């Protein structure tokens, strides 16, 4: 089947559709940032995007390379200090959605961005959690987006950087958390929702042209599929044009000094 969009584009656009005008969204860098800004530039112009550098209600013209690019501040409703960001706005419970990426993810939405291998003698030392541990516990709910791979989607993560649903079931409630945790996973191949009881991520829709085998071959756990599996609607012309324009502006801005 010939597609006139890439799997990455489908992932970003599918993720953008999950966001609405009313959302107050704490945005992770990379794929989440692209999805949040496509949402803002298409169906959710009034969405509030917050980056952990303290920029609240930002509307960048190009995707930031870091969470603290100057344009985020230039276009924000207000910019607050980092302690204020984490204390009043995140811990204060004012953020409805945290949108995260992951280096390693398990089927219960637990995320590792700290180390591959043993913590004290790591095979690969990753950057670490940054804001993620408290984003995962303090936002109303968590969306996750990542490209599927056997290295990334694993049966057992090496380190719990941020807690999703633990071992499943009521794990969050048992730790005293009152927020929902991961409620959505968007990969380059599929849309996943947690099972209402076990909390295991279950494929509810395949992107156009994707088969069950393709999803399983790039996932390290035995994948569960919903009984009535749907197909993600293809990107519209507007969605694709918006994403491609955004990526082109971003590439031009980041490729040279003085951008």
């Amino acid at each position, binding site marked *: 089947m010939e597609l006139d969009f890439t799997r990455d584009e489908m992932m970003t656009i599918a993720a953008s559709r999950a966001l609405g005008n009313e959302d107050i969204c704490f945005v992770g860098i990379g794929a989440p940032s692209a999805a949040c800004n496509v949402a803002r530039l298409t169906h959710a112009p009034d969405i509030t995007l917050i980056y952990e550098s303290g920029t609240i209600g930002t509307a960048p013209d190009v995707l930031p390379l870091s969470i*603290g690019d100057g344009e*985020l501040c230039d276009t924000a409703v207000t*910019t607050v200090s980092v*302690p204020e960001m984490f204390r009043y706005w995140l811990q204060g419970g004012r953020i409805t959605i945290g949108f995260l990426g992951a280096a390693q993810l398990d089927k219960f939405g637990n995320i590792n961005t700290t180390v591959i291998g043993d913590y004290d003698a790591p095979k690969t030392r990753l950057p670490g959690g940054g804001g993620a541990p*408290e984003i995962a516990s303090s936002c109303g709910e968590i969306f996750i987006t990542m490209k599927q791979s056997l290295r990334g989607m694993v049966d057992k993560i090496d380190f719990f950087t941020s807690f999703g649903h633990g071992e499943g079931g009521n794990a969050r409630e048992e730790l005293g958390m009152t927020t929902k945790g991961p409620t959505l996973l968007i990969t380059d191949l599929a849309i996943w929702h947690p099972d209402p009881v076990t909390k295991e991520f279950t494929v509810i829709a395949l992107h156009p042209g994707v088969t069950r085998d393709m999803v399983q071959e790039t996932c390290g756990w035995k994948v569960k599929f919903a009984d009535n599996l749907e197909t993600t609607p293809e990107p519209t012309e507007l969605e694709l044009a918006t994403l491609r324009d955004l990526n082109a502006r971003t590439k031009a801005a980041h490729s040279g000094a003085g*951008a």
Partner: protein
Amino acid sequence: MAKFQSLKDAVAENLFDGDVAAFEGFTHLIPHAAAHEAIRQGRKDLTLVRMTPDVIYDQMIGMGMVKKAIFSYAGNPGVGLLRRLRDAVENQWPHPMEIEEHSHAAMANAYEAGASGLPCAVFRGYKGADLKKVNPNIREVTCPFTGEVLAAVPSVRPDVTFIHAQKANKRGDVLVEGIIGIQKEAVLAAKRSVVTVEEVVDNFDDVHPNACILPNWAVTAICEVPGGSHPSYAHGYYIRDNAAYLEWDKIASDRDGFKAWMKDNVLDATPEDFASRVSALRESK
């Protein structure tokens, strides 16, 4: 009272071997010139604190100055991993380095507690997170009013904090604008502070009444170093040199290439070199 002096003198008088030092900047206003001066002066056995250690911490670690790093996100922002830090953690090169790792929320609270004169910070965090298994400085306290179990971490109290800021006035007050990050708390938490600024102006009469200003009696030393945060940026002066961050990934990937770059661009350079590094970045603003 803040003392106006050269960066060389300010570093010599305020940073000593074995110090706990913070060179702060949350993606913005990162004090590159100050860190390079510390590298030239060859300080050793430092405990470096920073929420987001990036290129300058990679450089100081690679130059063998760092005994311990306390941090919450050690990456080259938007680019990837820090290769010198990885080499130290994974291969103990150039020597073993201790790490104390936190989350951003914990570090932000710990700086604020330090600025507030408190021994520890209390917040709702680390729930279900493995960091509390590997970092003995992450503990719990029970709220005496509600019984809620909260996270506690020691406050951050650096011997010295270095930050970069936009302006000082002639009295020595310092103005920080844009993404203010943790700059104010990092200065107020420290025993001594050195602030490099883009320029010194007559007064702040035209500044908004709620602006982020550090009064001169809260700052130890001020050094005028135009371009002093390059390749980071100074809001209103020059933009971030994204290409330099991408380039750093290649430079730091190899020990010999790293050492050669450090000799040419840091050891054999001066604080005055920073001004020309941002000239092209000013034009396009």
